[in-house]
Structure formats: structure tokens, C-alpha cells
């Protein structure tokens, strides 16, 4: 059984349909990447999976439990998920350590000492050991985004959602963030991500999905999707990406 299963999900904003009957399965330890032009619905799909948006039709199941049911305990669902945003969204009034330990302590009831110990372990694993006492605005963008990943990891989620986590970073810093996602994959973390970094997507993904106008047009292993896409629109999109030198 898949860890996250999305069946026939629709989402409208006013008259505009952002998601038009999307089906997608994410299995445990799998890395699934959503690609497509801006406005194709990638981010909305992630936000639906985290219940930041309410779906207008269809079913999303996490570990077999239907999370789109209006009777579901929203906080209980989110407890099992980690999300990392494009703009980091760290809490500026807290130190790095406080950012990371907030959810373990307040939501999961982990005692302060243990939460801090675990947070320090995670920080040193990602080369941030000396930043525990720093405030977010004292860090570079790349460091902030790495802290955001650590914050998402700290609650031991079943699945991590990554929404264009490198879009706000310059190339030098992109590399360090991609490095930690690579490490997460090696540790067996299940991830659903959106990205514009095509070569990275190709390298890290088990499955790549191409979204176009809210429709999941095509999905498959990266080699197949990048080298031999079935759809004309996928081909055109990848052609555009190649011409802009990003693949």
C-alpha cells in the first residue's frame, strides 16, 4: 500500500480549476517530483496534501487514512507530515534551536532536554552545529533553508513535502540545500517535492510527474520522462527548459 495516495483531486479558485482530477501514489522511501510551468498546480497539490488547502473533490489518503474527510483531526494529520516552504518561513523571533524544538516540545510532548539533544544531533548532521544559538536573520539563505529542513525533520514525519525549496537561493547556496535533500533520500525518507532544478530532479527522483494546467499529464521514471516523453506538451516544456540552459 502506498504511503500517500491522491485520487481524483480537484481544486478550484473561483472559476479557475487549479487541479483537475489528479491521481498520484507515493510509496514509502520513494522520492516523487512534480514538474511543470508556474501555475500548473504543483504547489497547490502539495498544499492540499498538507491540508493547507481544502480539496473540492477527490480523496487523499495518508497511510490508509482518508485525510480529506471533513471529520478528520487536521492537527493529527499534520503531525505526521513535514513541509518546507520556498521562503523558509522560520520564526524570526526564535533561535535556530527554538525553531527546531518548538513542535517536538509543544505538539509531541518531548521533554526540553531530549528535544534539544535531538535537534543538536540533526544540526551537526547537516553541518549547522555552530548555528544553534543564532537567529534566522543572522544566517544565509542556504543556512536558513537547511534549518527549515531540520525543523521539518525534527518531528520524525512519515513524509516530507518540499515546495520549490531552492527557488529563492542563488546557485552557490542551491548546492548545499540539494546536498541535504540527497542525504535525506539516502536515509530512506519519503519525499514529495516540486522543483525547477531539472538536473537535480532527474538525479534524485524515483518518479517524475509532469503537470500541465492542473492535469497530471504524464509520469514515469526520470530517464523515460526526460529522454522519451509521451506527450507533446511534456516535450515542449522540456525543450524550453533545455533552451534556458537548466537541464
Amino acid at each position, binding site marked *: 500500500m502506498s504511503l500517500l495516495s491522491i485520487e481524483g483531486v480537484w481544486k478550484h479558485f473561483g472559476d479557475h480549476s487549479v487541479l*483537475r*482530477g489528479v491521481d498520484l501514489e507515493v510509496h514509502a522511501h520513494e522520492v516523487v517530483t512534480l514538474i511543470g510551468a508556474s501555475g500548473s498546480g504543483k504547489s497547490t497539490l502539495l498544499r492540499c496534501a498538507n491540508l493547507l488547502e481544502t480539496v473540492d473533490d477527490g480523496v487523499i489518503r495518508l497511510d490508509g487514512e482518508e485525510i480529506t474527510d471533513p471529520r478528520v483531526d487536521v492537527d493529527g494529520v499534520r503531525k505526521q507530515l513535514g513541509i518546507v516552504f520556498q521562503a523558509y518561513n522560520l520564526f524570526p523571533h526564535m533561535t535556530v534551536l527554538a525553531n527546531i524544538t518548538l513542535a517536538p516540545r509543544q505538539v509531541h510532548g518531548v521533554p526540553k532536554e531530549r528535544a534539544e539533544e535531538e535537534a543538536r544531533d540533526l544540526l551537526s548532521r547537516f553541518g549547522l552545529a555552530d548555528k544553534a544559538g543564532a537567529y534566522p536573520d543572522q544566517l544565509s539563505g542556504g543556512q536558513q533553508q537547511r534549518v527549515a529542513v531540520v525543523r521539518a525533520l525534527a518531528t520524525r514525519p512519515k513524509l516530507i513535502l518540499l515546495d520549490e525549496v531552492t527557488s529563492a537561493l542563488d546557485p552557490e547556496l542551491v548546492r548545499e540545500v540539494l546536498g541535504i535533500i540527497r542525504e535525506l533520500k539516502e536515509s530512506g525518507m519519503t519525499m514529495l517535492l516540486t522543483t525547477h532544478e531539472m538536473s537535480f530532479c532527474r538525479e534524485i527522483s524515483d518518479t517524475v510527474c509532469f503537470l500541465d494546467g492542473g492535469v497530471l499529464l504524464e509520469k514515469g521514471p526520470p530517464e523515460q520522462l526526460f529522454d522519451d516523453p509521451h506527450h507533446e506538451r511534456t516535450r515542449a516544456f522540456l525543450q524550453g527548459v533545455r533552451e534556458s540552459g537548466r537541464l
Partner: protein
Amino acid sequence: MTAGPTWVKSERQQERERFRRSQGRRNASIATASVVVFVVLLATIATNAPGWTRVQAAFFNAEVFRESLPDVAEGFLLNIKIFLITEPLVLVVGLLVALARNVKSPAFLPIRALATLYVDVFRGVPTLLVIYLVGFGLPALRLQGIPSDPATLGIIALTLSYGAYVAEVFRAGIDSVHPSQMAAARSLGLSQAKAMRFVVLPQATRTVVPPLLNDFISLQKDTALVATIGALEALRQAQIHTLDNFNYTPYLVAALLFILLTIPMARFTDHLAERTRRRRGA
């Protein structure tokens, strides 16, 4: 746009929407019930208080209410006049002072110092005292052209007092506009003054409207303080009626009139705040 699938609302989605509607109805009835319980509880506590019968006679006398209403309402027209004149004046004074405090040029140091002094003094002195000082002090100077009408003196005093508050509100609004906006405007060749007028102020105004309206609500109430220097407004009229028959109901009349005036303003402020919140959320 791709010609994709068309949407037919599923049975499951219809069931979800039914559930959400029933939840909505349930929440509405809980809210109604809790309001009713709360009001009944308050009323019970008040009416069972030992002094209730005397309070009822002194504050809720229907006859005195009818009798005093026309005079108090007439006085209230003066309150409305006072704040309708004071509000635009306060806006002008507040904005000018806020701008003066933001002038960077060294030649204008005296202006900046004066503006700072003005804000320090008039924010520090209680509004009632300002009204006394202006109301009794200004006419005592016996200068040519100084008004002696208490309402006019009240308008001057309220403008001085609220101008200082509003100047600080405007200044906070100006500071809240990110410096990059000024940098972008200046780099297009706009002067400091033009950048302020076309780029910074329009954005500052938007953030400043809710706190400004809040200050205006406060100003509407404080027009009653002008009663102390003899203007025949709502509170003064109520006082006169109270002394006529030793019954406090006229105060209740005045209070009701003030509430009727401030509630629409308060709801309007809420509405604006909600709109800003929604825009940010989108």
C-alpha cells in the same frame, strides 16, 4: 489551457458538503445558545443586586428619558459638528508633523526639533488639561481675533492633542514601508519629497487607516470633554437635565447617543482590518 477532464461533483464530495453545512448550522446554534445564556446570566446578576431598585429608578426612568432626549440630542449635534471639523484638521496636523519629523536635511533641524517637542508635549498632557489651558488661557490673552466661543476653543484643543497622537501613527506607517521602496523611487530620479508623496505615503496610508479610525473613535468620545469649558453639547445638556430633577437617566441618553455613533465606525474599522487580512492571506 489544455482541454482536460470535466468535473462532475462526486457522491463523496456532496456528502462532505452536507456534513460541512450541518457543522455550520451546529456552530450557529451553539453560538446563539451561548449568547442567550450569557445575557440571561448578566441580567439575573444585575436585577438581583441589592441596590437594583434604586439604580433602576435613578438611571432607567422612562419619563425622564423622553423629556431629556430632545435637548441631549440637540447638544449631540454640536458633538458631531466638533468632531467633523476636528478630524480633517487632525489629519492635516498629524501628517505635517510626521513629515516634519522625517525631514533629513540639516537645515531643517529647527523644524524637526519643533515637531518632536510638539509631539512630546501634547502627547504627555492629558486631553482634559489641554482643553482647560486652551479654553481659559487663550481668551485671557485678549489678543485680536482669538475666538471666545467654547466650541471653537474645544476644536483647537482637541486638534492639538490628537494631532500629536495621529502624527505618531503616521510616522509608524511611514516607517513600515520597506526602505527598498524609497531606494527604488530615488533610483528612478524622484526627489526625496516626490518619492515620499508618490511611493511611500500611499503605501503608508493603507497600513495606517485602522489605527487612525481607532483614534477617531476615541476623538468622537472626547468631544464630550469640551463640556468642561461650557460648550452646550450632549454631556452638558445631560448634566443640566440631571440637576433639574435629580435623576441620572439623561446620562444614559447621552451614552446611548455616543454608542450609536461609534458602533458603525467600529464595524467599519473591523471591515477594513478583515479586508487587509484577506488580501495578505491570498
